[in-house]
């Protein structure tokens, strides 16, 4: 594998043509392997601001686009720790401090009895964190996005695979990028309007 470098500082390219502005160029593929190969080629070529779109998850596609790992496990773990500690604290504080009930001299901090709720709250908050972080990190819900302006993009949720290189990429150049995408055996290359 070629060496991966951090994306350079992104500067807004100057657009001399009038509205609507160009968001990027989108190549359409018929098979998921073609998209995966195209993403690897584009990354090797130096493109960084790009995204792949597919109707089902493709193993290794996000990694090929330079997104090495997902941040979800961290948030899930944090949620689990908060849920577990918080759950135990709630039980202990309520049972031992706010409403202590002496039943035959048994300890107020009766930890074995506190385990089920601690466990349930660990799972609850961890799951909630996992779910919410998927959508917040992906900036969803976002009802509209420039890629939806391409009429063929309807099939991104059915049976077509797309690679979109954004105009904001420092290496983006309208005709050169189009040429590059066409060489990748794309069945069609379309312009994405902002």
């Amino acid at each position: 594998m070629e060496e991966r470098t951090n994306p350079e500082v992104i500067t807004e390219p100057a657009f001399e043509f009038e509205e609507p502005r160009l968001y990027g160029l989108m190549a359409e593929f018929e098979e998921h392997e073609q998209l995966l190969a195209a993403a690897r080629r584009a990354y090797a070529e130096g493109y960084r601001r790009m995204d792949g779109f597919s109707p089902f998850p493709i193993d290794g596609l996000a990694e090929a686009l330079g997104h090495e790992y997902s941040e979800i496990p961290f948030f899930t773990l944090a949620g689990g720790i908060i849920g577990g500690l918080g759950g135990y604290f709630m039980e202990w504080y309520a049972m031992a401090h706010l409403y202590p009930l002496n039943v035959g001299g048994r300890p107020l901090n009766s930890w074995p009895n506190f385990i089920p709720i601690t466990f349930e709250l660990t799972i609850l908050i961890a799951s909630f964190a996992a779910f919410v972080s998927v959508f917040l990190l992906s900036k969803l819900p976002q009802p509209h996005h420039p890629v939806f302006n391409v009429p063929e993009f309807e099939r991104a949720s059915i049976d077509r695979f797309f690679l979109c290189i954004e105009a904001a990429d420092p290496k983006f150049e309208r005709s050169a990028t189009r040429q590059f995408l066409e060489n990748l055996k794309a069945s069609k290359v379309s312009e994405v309007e902002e």
Partner: protein
Amino acid sequence: METIQGSEPRTPDPDRPYPVTTLGYPAEMIGPKETYARVSDQIAGIPLKHPNPKFWFIGFTFAFSFFLLFCAAVTYLLARGVGIWGIQIPVAWGFAITNFVWWIGIGHAGTFISAILLLLFQKWRTTINRFTEAMTLFAVICAGMFPLLHLGRPWVFYWLLPYPDTMALWPQFRSPLVWDVFAVSTYFTVSLLFWYLGVVPDLATVRDKARTRWKKITYGMAALGWRGSAVHWQRHQTAYLLLGGLATPLVLSVHSVVSFDFSVAQLPGWHSTIFPPYFVAGAIYSGFAMVLNLLIPIRRIYGLQNLITERTLNNMACVMLATGWMVAYGYIMEAFMAWYSGDPFERAEMWDRAFGPYGWIFWILMTLNCVIPQLLWSRRVRTNDIALFFVALSINLGMWVERFVIVVQSLSHDFVPSSWKLYTPTFWDAATLLGSVGLFLTLQFLFIRYVPMISISESRELIAQRKEGKL
């Protein structure tokens, strides 16, 4: 992810319409001619085009009329109190808790299929997980109703939740009944999140296939603007796997906690350490049976045989056979431990269970749950959907009867003969039970009408894996 599941050599069989593996089991996980576009059209076509409207309207009307019965029963209950049911002292739990345990058990199949089988790389779960997860949600909704209605004053149900109230009171966190509140509400929430996370990409498919403005807007809102971005998919898949991992211990804990409601009490017939595993096995047993009871007619009516193949039916039947034997082991151990403990109350209770006034119900339970399901040893039964439907029905009824025996018979026969009393259900008991079935089926009908009931994106994954030669 690499797997050998489904990659066995397959040969055509002159007796059967599908290819089989060398052991003679059905081989196909998805029809051989399927393409991405075909599965999308077929599955998304059900909410969009509404095929078989006659079936749907008749079925929905039937279900909804039972739901109205439920509304009537609950209204009368709220007006008059729990005295309209047959419950008394000592049988204070009656139908309400029987129904609760039955419904929550049914709800276990969804998470078992979607989470545990996901972690075990069982690819045949792909085409049924959406449906069973939805079934879980509806079953848990029905289950949750019963303890609340049984409270006597359901309008103060929020006293079960921990919040700093003006009375300075807290729920008793050491009580299994409070654990239940947390377990069931966590289970519902996590199942809902898991289900919705899976359904979002498919709602995007429906949005993109919709041709009318309102459908586009409605499904578009529900799909949250999903566009299938690779980075989003990466997060989605990580979270899906993590939720599967979190839901796995959860599903085992929920019915264990439900069983603590019984086993922590000192009543003969309840006070037993076999309860948690035996309840969990029973839950999966009845859940799979309910899945088959719902899925077999729907598979035929909507022509989904190409997606829900004989292989899926066969595998589900195998799981039922295995869990059925775990449940049977539980029954044997209950009887054995009652004898082996030497405790006269336990022994008397077990004798009363089999030969007392409720003995005939016990033997019905044994027939429905332990004898009839032995038909599943036959491959012919496992791959014949009609036979399988009736075996599943027997298990569903049997599991309800099992909960009835555990709840009612044990309570009716406690330590002191002077407090023994038999329980007779009233019309309102039956109306609430049938009504809850109506509520369940109403939700189920709405689901198959408006939401893609099979995971489209995961079906596409199966097709992609077959193209790569991994399936």
